[in-house]
Structures are given as structure tokens and as C-alpha cells.
């Protein structure tokens, strides 16, 4: 650990070096500058900050991360992550934050779809990127977003033109490898779904091997009028890794956005999901499943902002907490004075698997309109002993019985994953993290 003040200097000098290196994309420079100075003012949040009460980022603030090194990742190791056996699946693959064309493929994209590395789009001074990049995620008041915005180097850019329908899911895969020293990357994803378009995107963060690194992630999604966006984010980081991620969703009139956040590994993982329902008739569903074991820590931090009338939002997050792991769910629903006829529902269920696992569940409703329906519910429970006995009395041993019940708990969220091969992958991840995985695998 080094002094936090010194790491701050480190980021400032990282920014200066970076500023000199980057030749093109000068248009972004004023935004970067504003972001780095905002970051310097805000500093890293502490647990005294209500929004960070349960997550201490001291270890991040006190580590002198180096810029991400180049990493090697073999195509063969990628294959299990790809849908439809791979070859034709449209995908952008990044290794340690760098776009890796030899692992990527445009597949067969329908007309009106633009998929490319964000760096390329910035360098080309792409009009859509200029309009939307860093216009939605809030670097003005979020330190990690400010840091990402200042240092963002590469990432994914996807634009779906008005009326275009993309049936195959598009994969964006960020692979992290072990470095000589602790390193950081600032992956950035921008997705713009045009009016009445439809697209499914799966963002995956995966560790090639165990290692200390910090992925400071920001994803911005803009769903234009009547657009349909299904977004999945799966984190499978190293158990020594830090992952701080912000997902900013801006929804225009009648748009329909569903997101799934699955956390299946990482030393410290934070998902900030911020949705602004900024037009009438929006539909928004935020689902999540998080599993922690060992000393893993996952903090889901959701803010759903109903800014306009007649919008529906549904939050459904489940946590399975084992070992000395900690799982946090904080869900804030804000209903602005204009947002009459809001229908917002929030559910968080936690399953405690060990005596040392910890759980926090914090709903917050801030309602400034008077004709709305807002509900929230949280349950924290353990595996039902009656059910365990019932299963055992039929011949299943204790671990198999418990595993089956935990699997059942997870299925309720996994059933909402609409991409069949992804659901299969996630089912497998759940089973792999359970005791008696062998038996459960054979049955399934």
C-alpha cells in the first residue's frame, strides 16, 4: 500500500503521459481534462460517503496500478465463451483493455449496424460518438467514471440504425491476464440503439488466470424512441481483481431495456447501474444474480430514475453468499414530480450459505409524484432444512440436496436470460461454484 495522495499524483501523471501520446481524437481532450480535474477534486470515495458505505475502496486507492500491459490470449480459450460454436458470432474482443482484431469478428451483421473499437471511432471523429460519448455517465459527480473518462483508451462502440433489427447477440469480451505488477484498464463501451431498433449485447469480463488488476469500467447505453435493448453483463474476474463498473442507461420514449448483471467472481466487484427513464411509456427491467465465496465482495448499486409519466421498472436481484463473502444490494427509486403513473417494483433476495457470509440490502424510495405504484421487498434466508430433509429422505446426500436447492434459487433469475447458450453457460457457472458439482452436472 502507498499513500492515497501519491496514487492521485500517479493518475495525474498517467493522464499527462497519455495526453502527449494520443495524437488523434483531439476533440475529446476538453472532456478528458474536465474529467481528470473533477477526479482530482472528488478523490476516491470512502465509507463515510453514503453511496459507498458498505464497500471500502481503500485497497484500490492505495495501490499504485500500472497502465495495463499487453497480454496474450489464445483463440482456443475464447471458444467456450462464444455462442453458436464461435466462428460466425459477431464479437469484439479486448485483452487487458486493448482491442484485439485477431480474436474479434464482425460475423454477419445486418445493414445499419456499426460495430468497431471505440478507439477507432474516436480517431475517426465519428458523429454518433461525439454526440453521445461521456454525455450520459456522470463524470461530474462519480469519481470512478471521471477516472475512466480521463484515461479511456479503448473499448467498444455499437450503433444500431433506426429500424434495424439485430437478431444474433453481439458479444463484447474483455479478457484480463496476469501482469508483472498490478495494472489497471479503463474499458469503455458505448451502445446507441436508434429509433425502433432492436439489439442484444452481452458484455463479459473474464480473467485468463489469477492476478491483481483493476478494471474501471463504464458502459453507456442510449435507447432511442421505441428501441428494444437487451443487455447482459457477466463478470468472472480473478479473485484478486477489482472491478468497478458503471452502467448508464438512458431511455427515451417507449423504449424497452432489460439488463442482467451476473457476478461470478472477483475480489471486489461493484456494479453501479443508473437508469434514467426520460420519456413516457418506458419499460425497464434490471435483473441480477451474484455469488460470492471466500472473501469476495459484490456491491450492486442501482438507481432508477423515473423522470416521465407512465414508465414501468422492475428490479430483481438475487444473491448467494458463501464463505466469508459479502453481498450488497442497494436500490434507489427516484420518482420525479412529473412522473405520474409510475409503476416501480424492486425485489432482492439473499441466500446465506455460511455463518460468516454477510449481506446488506438497502431499498430507498424517493417519491415526488402522488399517483404512483412503488413497491420493494427484501428477503434474507437460508436453505430450507425441511426441504433438505425431504430430498435426503429420497436418497440424495446432504450436499446434493443443498446444491439442488441453491440451484433452484438461482434458476428464478437465470430463467430471465433469454439467450439459450448464455443461460447454459451461467447455469454451469452456478453449478461449478457449488459443492457436489459432479452430481448436479450429471443430472442436468
Amino acid at each position, binding site marked *: 500500500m502507498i499513500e492515497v495522495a501519491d496514487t492521485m499524483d500517479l493518475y495525474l501523471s498517467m493522464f499527462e503521459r497519455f495526453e502527449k501520446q494520443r495524437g488523434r481524437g483531439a476533440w475529446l481532450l476538453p472532456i478528458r481534462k474536465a474529467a481528470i480535474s473533477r477526479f482530482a477534486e472528488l478523490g476516491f470515495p470512502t465509507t463515510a460517503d453514503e453511496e459507498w458505505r458498505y464497500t471500502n475502496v481503500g485497497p484500490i486507492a492505495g495501490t499504485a496500478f500500472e497502465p495495463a500491459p499487453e497480454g496474450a490470449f489464445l483463440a482456443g480459450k475464447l471458444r467456450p465463451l462464444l455462442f453458436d460454436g464461435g466462428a460466425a458470432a459477431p464479437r469484439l474482443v479486448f485483452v487487458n483493455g486493448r482491442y484485439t482484431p485477431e480474436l474479434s469478428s464482425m460475423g454477419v451483421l445486418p445493414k445499419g449496424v456499426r460495430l468497431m473499437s471505440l478507439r477507432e471511432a474516436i480517431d475517426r471523429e465519428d458523429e454518433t460518438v461525439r454526440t453521445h460519448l461521456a454525455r450520459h455517465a456522470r463524470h461530474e459527480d462519480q469519481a470512478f467514471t471521471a477516472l475512466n473518462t480521463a484515461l479511456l483508451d479503448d473499448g467498444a462502440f455499437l450503433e444500431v440504425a433506426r429500424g434495424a433489427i439485430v437478431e444474433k447477440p453481439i458479444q463484447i469480451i474483455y479478457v484480463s491476464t496476469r501482469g508483472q505488477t498490478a495494472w489497471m484498464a479503463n474499458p469503455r463501451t458505448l451502445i446507441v440503439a436508434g429509433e425502433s431498433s432492436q439489439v442484444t449485447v452481452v458484455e463479459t469480463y473474464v480473467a485468463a488466470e489469477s492476478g491483481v488488476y483493476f478494471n474501471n469500467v463504464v458502459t453507456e447505453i442510449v435507447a432511442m424512441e421505441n428501441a428494444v435493448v437487451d443487455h447482459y453483463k457477466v463478470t468472472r474476474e480473478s479473485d484478486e481483481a477489482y472491478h468497478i463498473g458503471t452502467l448508464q442507461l438512458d431511455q427515451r420514449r417507449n423504449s424497452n431495456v432489460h439488463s442482467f448483471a451476473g457476478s461470478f467472481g472477483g475480489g471486489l466487484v461493484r456494479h453501479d447501474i443508473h437508469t434514467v427513464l426520460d420519456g413516457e411509456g418506458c419499460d425497464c427491467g434490471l435483473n441480477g444474480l451474484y455469488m460470492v465465496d471466500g472473501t469476495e465482495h459484490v456491491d450492486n448499486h442501482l438507481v432508477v430514475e423515473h423522470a416521465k409519466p407512465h414508465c414501468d421498472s422492475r428490479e430483481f436481484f438475487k444473491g448467494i453468499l458463501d464463505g466469508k463473502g459479502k453481498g450488497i444490494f442497494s436500490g434507489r427509486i427516484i420518482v420525479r414530480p412529473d412522473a405520474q403513473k409510475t409503476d416501480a417494483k424492486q425485489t432482492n433476495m439473499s441466500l446465506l450459505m455460511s455463518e460468516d457470509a454477510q449481506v446488506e440490502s438497502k431499498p430507498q424510495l424517493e417519491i415526488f409524484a402522488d399517483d404512483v405504484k412503488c413497491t420493494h421487498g427484501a428477503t434474507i434466508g437460508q436453505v*430450507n432444512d*425441511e*426441504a433438505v*430433509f*425431504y*430430498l*435426503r*429422505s*429420497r*436418497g*440424495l*446426500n*446432504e450436499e*446434493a*440436496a443443498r446444491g*439442488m*436447492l441453491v*440451484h*433452484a*434459487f438461482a*434458476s*428464478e433469475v437465470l430463467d430471465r436470460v433469454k439467450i439459450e447458450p448464455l443461460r447454459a453457460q451461467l447455469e454451469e457457472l452456478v453449478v461449478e461454484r457449488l459443492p457436489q458439482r459432479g*452430481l448436479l452436472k*450429471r*443430472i*442436468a
Partner: protein
Amino acid sequence: MLEIRNLHAKVEGREILRGVDLTVNAGEVHSIMGPNGSGKSTLAQVLAGRESYEVTDGEVLFDGKNLLDMDPDERACEGVFMAFQYPVEIPGVNMSYFMKAALNSVRKHRGEPELDAVDFLKLVKERAKIVKIDEKMLQRAVNEGFSGGEKKRNEIFQMAVLEPRLAILDETDSGLDIDALKIVSDGVNELRGPERAMVVITHYQRLLNYIVPDFVHVLVDGRIVKSGGKELALELEESGYASHEQQSRRREAMAL
């Protein structure tokens, strides 16, 4: 097959079973009757291996092996089955998935090869007929949203799939209308055989019109106070349990 000797058991510190003796041989059907609170269900739970029931004295041998030393799943694998009085609802666990895992676990224990999906499906379809279960039920979560009758039929269906050597039916008749009672009884009768023993626990004589036992035992205050043939059940129907209860209390008072 089953030998219970001087069995004493406590639940939450209270002694419920106070010296039960019972011998059951292969091919026999024994009925245990008794008033509420006499210890009938406790006996079933103890035999199935419920951990919250503490055995304080006595022994239970199953084919000469100490049953009380075995975990509940070991007992099931050895061939002991209990039909629950109150089957547990398990949301999210599909019936067919559960039964396949259970059956293969039992088969593995018996040294038999595991059944693949096709053979398993064939087997459950055939067994579902025994208790007139709609095959669609196999795609539902275990007992979730089942009616009372469906739950009891599901218990007998599971027994038909697992083919235990000793089946303990804990008040499988309670709360059933006459049609459901007939279906359940027909199912049970079909599963009777020279290699299989059954212990049928009931509060009501009515069940025994359909499942005719070889022996009837009256359990009062944690002890078997009278044993006899099937005619004993009819006798109880006439006279009730009151005289047996009085007798038991008198005996206790004298012992003090």
C-alpha cells in the same frame, strides 16, 4: 426385516416414544393406529432419520443393520421410504429432475447402472399410471401448488419409482376425499409384494377398508398397548381409543 426394540425418543426435550417394540417381516403390512399425540408420526420421523428427533434409548435394526446410525439418505438408499404426512413444497426444483437424481442415487448404492434419460422417462410414465398422475406434473416444481390429494398421490408415485423394501406411510389418508383415497390405496395395494413390507400409520380405520393390513397395533402414549389382526381395527372403530388411553394412564399411575 425391521426390528424395533424398546425405542425411546424425544422431541424438543419432551419424551414422545416410551419403549416401542415392533417386528415387521418382509411381505407384511402393519397398521399403527392411535389417538392424536400418541407418537405415531414421531415413530415415522425417527425411522426416516429426522435429525430434530432424539433417540434416547433402544435400537432399530433393518436387515440386521443399525438403522439409527445411518443418515436419512443412506436409509433411503438401503430401501426405507417414508410417505410424508405433509409433503414439502420445493419451488424451482422440477419433479422429474429430482426423481432422476434420487433414483440414480439409490441405484448407484444398489450397484445398479444409472438410468439414462430415455429409460428414466419410460419408467416414470409407467409408474405415474399407478396413482393416475398426469405426466405434466413431472414438469412442475416438487409439490408446489399441488392440491392435498395430488401431494399424497405424488408421495406414492415416488415410492413406486424408488421401489423401497420398507415403506412407511404417515397418515397418507388424512384429508383425502373418498375418490383420492381409493386411488392412493389402489396404488399402495399394487405395490404390495412378498419382498416389501409396509407400515401404515393412520388415525382413521377407514383407510384399512382399502389397504387391508396383516397386523394392527394400537399406539398410546408412546407405547404399543395392543396388537392383533385386522379385526382389531374394526373393534377400535366401534369402541374408540378412550379405553386404551385410560388403561395406559392407570398403568402409569400405578408405576409411579
